């Protein structure tokens, strides 16, 4: 079913491009934007469309950090590893989040709820250590606080649904 949806979406998307290899990155960007990642089926289709080897499309997709090969979670949790946060125990915060979500940095939970990323500096050093969930910044984190925030976020969701 998912495959059929992707196929339909791609037919529409590809119809606005010509079969020139230089269109590879714009096409991948559009697919990434619409789906949040590059489904394998889509990469194959693009290769076919542009008459490129599948491996070449894969090479480009894995080279650029902007492309994701697995779907991201509905919530993105970013833990800062910048200098200020590091000094104030950012690593301990990261370990706590990893423990709580059961995933490592740069991974996504199997229920597609959370993706855990790390960032080099968020620019809120005064609030270090910092955790950002979607667009909300949580400053002066401790392992206990971050655990609470994640629990609240989940409960909030459940309350809504």
């Amino acid at each position, binding site marked *: 079913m998912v495959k059929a949806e992707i196929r339909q979406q791609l037919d529409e998307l590809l119809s606005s491009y010509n079969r020139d290899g230089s269109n590879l990155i714009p096409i991948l960007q559009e697919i990434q934007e619409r789906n949040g990642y590059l489904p394998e089926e889509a990469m194959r289709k693009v290769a076919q469309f542009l008459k490129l*080897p599948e491996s070449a499309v894969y090479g480009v997709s894995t080279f650029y950090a902007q492309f994701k090969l697995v779907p991201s979670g509905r919530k993105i949790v970013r833990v800062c590893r910048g200098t200020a946060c590091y000094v104030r125990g950012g690593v301990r915060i990261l370990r706590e989040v990893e423990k709580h979500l059961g995933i490592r940095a740069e991974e996504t939970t199997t229920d597609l709820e959370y993706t855990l990323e790390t960032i080099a500096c968020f620019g809120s050093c005064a609030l270090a250590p910092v955790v950002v969930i979607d667009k909300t910044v949580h400053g002066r984190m401790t392992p206990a606080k971050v655990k609470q925030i994640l629990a609240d976020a989940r409960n909030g969701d459940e309350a809504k649904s």
Partner: protein
Amino acid sequence: MTSKNEGNGEFTLDIVKLTINGQEITADKGMTVLEAAQSTGIYIPKLCYDPDLKPYGACRLCVVEIENIRGLPTACTTPVSDGMVVHTETPVVSEVRRTAVQLLMTDHPCDCLICHRREQCQPFDICLRSVAVTDRCVTCPKNGQCELQEVIDYLGITELPFSRTTRSFPVDTSNPFFNLDRNKCILCGRCVRTCNEITGVGAIDFAFRGYSSRVSTFGDKPLVDSTCQSCGECVVHCPVAALMPKDTTQPVREVATTCPYCGVGCQIYLGTRDNRVVTVRGNKDKPPNNGHLCVKGRFGITGFIHHPERLTTPLIKKNGELTQATWDEALGLIAGRLDKYDGDEVGVIASAKCTNEENYIIQKFARVVLGTNNIDHSARLCDSSTLAGLGQSFGSGAMTNPINEIRNARGILAIGTNTTEAHPIIGLEVKRAVRSGAKLIVANPREIDLVRFAEIWLRQRPGTDVALLMGMMRVIVDEGLLDPTFISERCENFDAFKASLNSFGLDRVERITGVPRDLITDAARVYASSKPATILYGSGITQHCHGTDNVIATANLAMLTGNVGKPSTGVNPLRGQNNAQGACDLGALPDVYPGAQSVTDPGTRQRFEAAWECPLPSSPGLTLTEMLDSASEEKLKAIYLVGENPVMSNPDIKHTRKALERLEFLVVQDIFLTETARLADVVLPGATFAEKDGTSTNTERRVQRVRKAIEPTGNSRPDWWITCALGQQMKGKGFDFEHPSQIMDEIASLTPDYGGISFERLENGGLQLPCPTPDHPGTPTLHTSAFTRGKGQFIPLDYKPPAELPDDNYPLILTTGRSLYHFNTGTLTGKVTGLNALQDKELVKINPGDARALGIDDNDMVKVISRRGEVMARAEVSETSPAGVIFMTFHLAESPTNMLTSPALDPVARIPELKLCAVRVERVPPGV
């Protein structure tokens, strides 16, 4: 490196003078600095450079200083120019090279590379530096041939100033023939570029970034799950041990010979050790393959030569059991039995897998000793319509142009050929042409691999090729795209042919073929306007009950546009077997002697009677299919069969088997106990191509040497020896040959086209036929100034539907073909473990729509039923099959596809319609 234009003595301007390290040298314009340096023996270190590939400039080892050029240009990417002054060894250059290599070494297992004991250390010595065994050069199979070692030696690097990093990729051992160990990879990209530039497969590319960069398949999957075709070309081009064959036994001696599989006739070296063939590599210096090989040629040879099931002794059937016998017993028995029969009661089946000398001897045996023209071979099943069709149109039935001219064609029509699977090396030529701008038209009901490279894909219904080609020709005539000069000067019968185009209006053609008329028009325009244009066809054209008409249609099309007799043009039938051409040339046919000389012509017959010193039968004999019919009517009583397996390869094999069982006496000579050999009264063990001398003639008419590399296994004997022994036993004259070269001398004296062929001349490479005299250089292109028959003959054609059309009971069309991994009846490839690992079962390729309607899923067991029999196999739901058509190969004994196929014959060539029959498909519930 020629500096003169031939004839006028003028110097060309293509030469430049430059100075390298103070030495003044000349080089061809267009050469790179690296090539120019190498041509004068100046060494420049390099890792990513490969003469077979385009310059890449990635490893930075070939950097040089060039006066008046800023920085350090890479010699491999910089073209030479007049007056250039190059320094390849300066302190700056040296420092840059050392740093580049040292950086490479940081994550290559390199301890041995810079160890002072390297020369003394043996694989099992204990390493004082505690280097892991897997990381040691002395245990690495590439030790001594590693280009990284060579470069480090040259630069004299003895220490590593950077800290080591270790990669720990699991080794990809999924491919049955070679491993990919990314821990040893230096990311030079030679494998990636080989897979793109040479093979056009593109199974691998660089993926990820920075330290994670690696050679990867799509989705980072194991090689065997990628589009990799296992040709091993990447292994040949890898400078280090990242890509290595699984079997790394080193040969002691190498023998140049010819690959025994398809009609391309690739030139190979067999490496031997202790009377075993241990390696196979392509011969870089010789056409047609110039070093390239497919998976069967590179990895599929040693497996069958040394297979434990090889026949090693003659077998005689006693009380229904084949029991071991001596040669004297077996030959005595055969001679006694065959002596009893009249000429019209015996038949002989020769082999397109045997050498020229053997086919000559076998047909001579049939005609001289048995007194019959009942001699044929399996080219009847694949190529006979080519002989009949091109014979009428041009005067000779063979590829008109050499294989390595395809690369220079501007237009290619590939019709009825799955070139990349059935003739992989010709597939490389086609892809190479497309890369340099040729327009490819693929006409095929199936979405074959070449479609990826095609400008136009015509998906005609199976069996409608005449209509499709006539439609294209109608467009060419209507739009005035023809070549009137060529037609009027070189051809005849054009007006009658032109009149026959009238009934091929595009509406009708579209109705018959299912191809939209606009696409037919486009294809016609592209073919007619891209010159030179070449036509390639395979069994998709020939194996029809109107195969001769199909062939004639391709000839008409080529003549219409003047695409005959010039380089990179022509009509090029791709023959399936290594020596189909030779077996036909040397008279293993019922109606002609060697050299296509008719048995019914009294003058010719007298000449052969004089040469062979005996009377010869005057009427044509039975064809392969007719012999079996005659056997089932018990008119034909005995068959002597060499190197063929009709119980698998013939259409309607139930009938074939029954016919063979009705025989009073069947002798089968083969290297394995084939399905056919099991039915025999006497089985004679033949030797493989690696165990005998001879010649074979490939699809482009090139006669090439087959050379003995090892002694025959057990008590097996070369086929020429066996047939000669049998001839002598039966008191035949002229069978006392001691070596195949003597047989070739006799062939040359009786066969005009082979008149100039001798073993001595073939020592330095093949010769293309016709080669009538000892000083003739051979004929690369046919019909250059006149057609073999004088004028090219246009022949009017009608569309005839296939013999069997789908109906309510048998609603689908079955079309058959080849797989890359197997060959013909699987007698050879089925013995190769690795090839079986890549494909071990028959797959019924069925369109998703048809599959849905029948409730069939991928990998379901299905039963395919035709009017003649039924076969079980797994389904593969695939869009490569058009709606209403299923596809199967005929390689695997467990699913003998030819149970199903139709024996309907072409009226001229007597070729059966193997390409098409009506079937129905049923799902077999699991557990049944």
